[in-house]
């Protein structure tokens, strides 16, 4: 490659041991093998800047070096409704046609686990900030976020730390999302001891655009000579090495050292940048200008600019001295790789550059919003294949651009770990009232209001079903059209602990059921794969099985009316989620399902609407209590997790969507954590726990023992149906070869459950409310 003007670091002539020490001393995560590979690619020893570039780009976080081959081989990412698969910052799935124009839902799903464990408020906040950038940079209007969270045991050994982290994460999500003004429409929270030293903070973001308006994360055609423009906060040294950091195992001792790697959120500046960027989109569309636009996340300016250019076979020539910085004397490798928040890169034809700069710098006055902020031309797109960085007149990097962006691959070994789970033999309890209350009070079942009431769930004014009222959140998608978008995230960590394959299948199926339960057609999936250390064959086995489970579920739970998969259009892999003691978190392939409603007005909630209506069940109850909340409150884990019968499951999902579309259901709730008994209790209570209509249920439809019928988490739904619609509903379910069972009716002010003519549960709504509304709140206190 080309010559550079700065000192080269000797790699070639240094023996392995000395090289290992050198890399460690300089906080470079590259292995000796990888450092030698850098020399091979460059054809010479690297500069310091080049070392840090490869250090970032070849981190697991940026390169997917362990995971890519598995993802590519297994996941279905293409389908007729896919506008853009998982290749750029976000995936895009079809919403539908409005005035003959095809609209897409832009989706991104990421993790911010390691930063959140170290500095939970900032970690969670910058997680939200990053995901919003991913969606915005596709040219989309950002419309919603969601947050799946996993925390440690709030009553265990590390309870104080766990509670602190949980509260700070929730505050961080609120502090950022509320200020930028994007509604939080759903999420899920689980607690267990596997997350004691490594919480999971995932975040999902949705946007909307016309297909023709997509702005890609690569330079447009004929971009040679186009300007490279950096916009946003002035670059500092925050988050330097963040991508490499995300790929390290957390050691409590290193907490202080790692602190510098976490970025600093500025939602106020982001609020203004979002609006200014919308103005740029509008102006560019008006003038018919082709642009490239990319978020600056992991790897900062270097990653963003190299991928924009490399993506369309261009090179880049960038002067780092032209980057707006907020600290004096920053070395070039920090300017290039720092992960300062609230920044983007544009590729703009020179004739549009002035307009673009004016919008950010004058119309929206970025320089007066935050010191040093603004939009600045820092370089040019070149026709060569070199990635050139200059600093103070010297060339500090000159590498083949493809070598910077293509990364490396590893083939990891996998070995099935030993899993010694057994089914317990529980006695029938003599107090089912108490059993139900303890399940409802479990923080994994209890109302999450204490978290989501911190979040702005109604900003933008388009929420149709806000967080908590139903199995999924629903928002009106586009002004002037009837489309609605539904969203829900899921993954039960206990299922995955017992069986990483079926745990993943269940996560997909449940997310689809949740979206169907509001009447939306499950249309696409995203996966955020949170696992342990991929260099350990047992952890890699769990990862592989998880991906296989997602793939099988996505391929076999067809997109409604077709045999196409429900495609996986975006995702993220987060490895090294384990503590210094080597304990991995429960395998956590967190799934988000995006659903489409043609008519948002038909969306329904879970709360019972009327007295003297029918309560119907679909989904036979089975002896599948492995990983259930009931086992957990009895200090058991079990071994038999719910098994998904793909044909039945998809028919169930389609039938529910059809039933809601035909207006046959008054309310609907899927069966998951806590089983049938929790499902009915939540329908009685409603999202605000202000329900006033009770239910009378008989368990005589099943031969299962009472606790299994009540608390098995086998998939299914409960519906509230007016008498006049029961026959039509039966006919509809018959068409899908499904058995619809009447289990009771809405009545009174209590929940009354009988078996074999004997009353086993009789609780007033007030008792249900007390248990369900306190369990989660207590976990946080």
């Amino acid at each position: 490659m080309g010559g550079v003007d700065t000192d080269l670091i000797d790699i070639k002539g240094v023996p392995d041991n000395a090289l290992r020490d050198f890399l460690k001393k300089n906080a470079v995560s590259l292995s000796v093998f990888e450092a030698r590979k850098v020399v091979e690619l460059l054809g010479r020893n690297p500069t310091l800047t080049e070392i840090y570039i490869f250090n970032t780009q070849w981190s697991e976080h940026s390169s997917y070096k362990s995971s890519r081959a598995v993802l590519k081989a297994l996941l279905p990412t293409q389908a007729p409704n896919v506008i853009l698969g998982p290749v750029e910052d976000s995936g895009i799935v079809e919403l539908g046609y409005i005035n003959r124009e095809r609209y897409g839902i832009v989706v991104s799903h990421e993790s911010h686990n390691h930063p959140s464990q170290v500095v939970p408020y900032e970690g969670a906040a910058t997680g939200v900030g990053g995901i919003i950038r991913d969606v915005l940079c596709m040219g989309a209007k950002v419309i919603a976020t969601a947050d799946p969270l996993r925390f440690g045991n709030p009553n265990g050994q590390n309870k104080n730390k766990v509670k602190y982290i949980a509260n700070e994460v929730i505050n961080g999500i609120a502090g950022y999302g509320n200020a930028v003004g994007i509604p939080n429409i759903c999420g899920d929270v689980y607690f267990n001891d596997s997350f004691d030293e490594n919480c999971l903070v995932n975040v999902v973001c949705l946007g909307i655009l016309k297909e023709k308006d997509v702005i890609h994360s690569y330079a447009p055609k004929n971009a040679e000579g186009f300007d490279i423009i950096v916009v946003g906060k002035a670059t500092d040294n925050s988050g330097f090495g963040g991508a490499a950091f995300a790929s390290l195992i957390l050691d409590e001792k290193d907490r202080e050292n790692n602190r510098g790697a976490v970025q600093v959120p500025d939602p106020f500046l982001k609020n203004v940048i979002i609006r200014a960027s919308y103005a740029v989109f509008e102006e560019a569309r008006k003038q018919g200008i082709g642009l490239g636009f990319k978020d600056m996340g992991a790897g900062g300016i270097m990653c963003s600019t190299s991928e924009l250019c490399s993506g369309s076979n261009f090179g880049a020539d960038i002067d780092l001295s032209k980057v707006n910085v907020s600290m004096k004397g920053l070395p070039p490798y920090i300017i290039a790789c720092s992960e300062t928040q609230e920044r983007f890169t544009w590729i703009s034809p020179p004739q549009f550059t002035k307009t673009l700069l004016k919008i950010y710098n004058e119309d929206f006055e970025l320089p007066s919003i935050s010191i040093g902020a603004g939009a600045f031309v820092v370089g040019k797109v070149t026709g060569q294949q070199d990635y050139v960085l200059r600093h103070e007149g010297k060339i500090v990097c000159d590498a083949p651009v493809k070598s910077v962006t293509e990364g490396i691959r590893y083939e990891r070994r996998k070995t099935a770990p030993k899993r010694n789970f057994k089914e317990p033999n529980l006695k029938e309890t003599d107090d089912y009232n108490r059993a139900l209350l303890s399940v409802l009070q479990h923080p994994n079942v209890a109302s999450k209001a204490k978290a989501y009431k911190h979040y702005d769930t109604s900003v933008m004014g388009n929420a149709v079903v806000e967080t908590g009222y139903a199995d999924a959140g629903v928002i009106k998608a586009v002004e002037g059209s009837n489309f609605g978008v539904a969203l829900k995230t899921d993954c039960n960590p206990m299922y995955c602990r017992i069986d990483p394959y079926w745990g993943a299948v269940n996560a997909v199926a449940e997310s689809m059921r949740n979206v169907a339960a509001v009447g939306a057609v499950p249309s696409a999936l995203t996966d955020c794969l949170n696992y342990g250390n991929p260099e350990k064959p047992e952890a890699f086995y769990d990862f592989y099985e998880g991906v296989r489970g997602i793939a099988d579920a996505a391929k076999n739970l067809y997109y409604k009316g077709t045999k196409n998969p429900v495609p996986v259009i975006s995702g993220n892999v987060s490895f090294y989620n384990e503590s210094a003691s080597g304990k991995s978190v429960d395998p956590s392939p967190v799934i988000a399902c995006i659903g489409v409603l043609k008519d948002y007005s038909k969306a329904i909630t879970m709360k019972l609407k009327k007295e003297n209506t029918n309560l119907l069940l679909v989904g036979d109850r089975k002896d599948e209590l492995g990983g259930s909340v009931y086992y957990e409150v009895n200090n058991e884990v079990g071994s038999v997790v719910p098994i998904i019968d793909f044909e039945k499951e998809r028919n169930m999902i389609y039938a529910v969507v059809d039933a809601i579309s035909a207006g046959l259901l008054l309310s609907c709730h899927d069966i998951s954590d806590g089983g049938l008994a929790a499902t009915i209790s939540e329908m009685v209570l409603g999202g605000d726990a202000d329900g006033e209509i009770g239910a009378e249920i008989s368990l005589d439809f099943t031969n299962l023992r009472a606790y299994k019928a009540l608390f098995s988490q086998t998939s299914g739904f409960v519906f509230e149906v007016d008498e006049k619609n029961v026959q039509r509903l039966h006919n509809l379910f018959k068409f899908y070869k499904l058995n619809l069972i009447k289990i009771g009716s809405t009545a009174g002010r209590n929940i009354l459950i009988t078996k074999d003519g004997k009353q086993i549960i009789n609780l007033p709504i007030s008792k249900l409310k007390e248990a369900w509304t306190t369990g989660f709140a207590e976990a946080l206190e």
Partner: protein
Amino acid sequence: MPPKKPNIAVVYFPGNNCEEESLRAVLASGMDGKIVRWNQRKGIEKYDGFVIPGGWAYEDRIRAGVIAAKDPVFEIIKKEASGMKPVLGICNGAQALVECGMIPGLKNKVEMALAPNKNPFVSGYYCTWVNVRNVQDKGRCAFTSFTEKDGIVPMPIAHGEGRYVTKDRELLDKLVKNKQIIFRYSTKEGKIEDGFPTNPNGAMYGIAAICNKKGNVMAIMPHPERASFIRQLPGSAELKNKFAGSIEGMEGAAPARQLFNSMKKYVEEEIL
């Protein structure tokens, strides 16, 4: 030629985030309007009324609304308000109206504060649905011409600092006497209770909205623009369930639209 429609400026200060839905509510009530940035103040006096939307103007540096209240655009808004144009400050906009002395506007200085919420359930920012009751006669201020006395309006709140307080003991008496307290937090049946959850932030006297003496300026903490369409109502609202399955019904006016409809009537009768 049809009569001129009232034209409303929805003023965006850097950090606000409710400008779009505020404009949508303005348009839905039959007015014209535009989002006007803080630095586009030239000519802003030509608008017939102003909405100061919610959010975090100037990052709520120092205190919510303080910096926005010192922005030069507020001098113009003050002047136009003294000429009787209507000004509606919602949430962060309400905080700015209090910080610039327009509300309650008795001494032309800051007389009250919107203090951090007192809430036994969630500390800090709190987002939930509440009910407010119009405790004055219909039409007492520019925003209640269509809201009966004792009429109840459901709206969401979304704030961390929404607790109306004052150190001036006589001020509350004056506000009551002047009929400046327009909306108070109530149950859905209209019962005013001091405690949580009916009063979601611990505001004195359960105050949700105050107007100036002349009634053309109002500072309201809940969000009428997020409660102006049936579809925006919470999943538990009977009114919403009644319209399930009907887009026309869902796009229809929810009770809080009355505030914007009233603003329109006021401009048509008093300004145009």
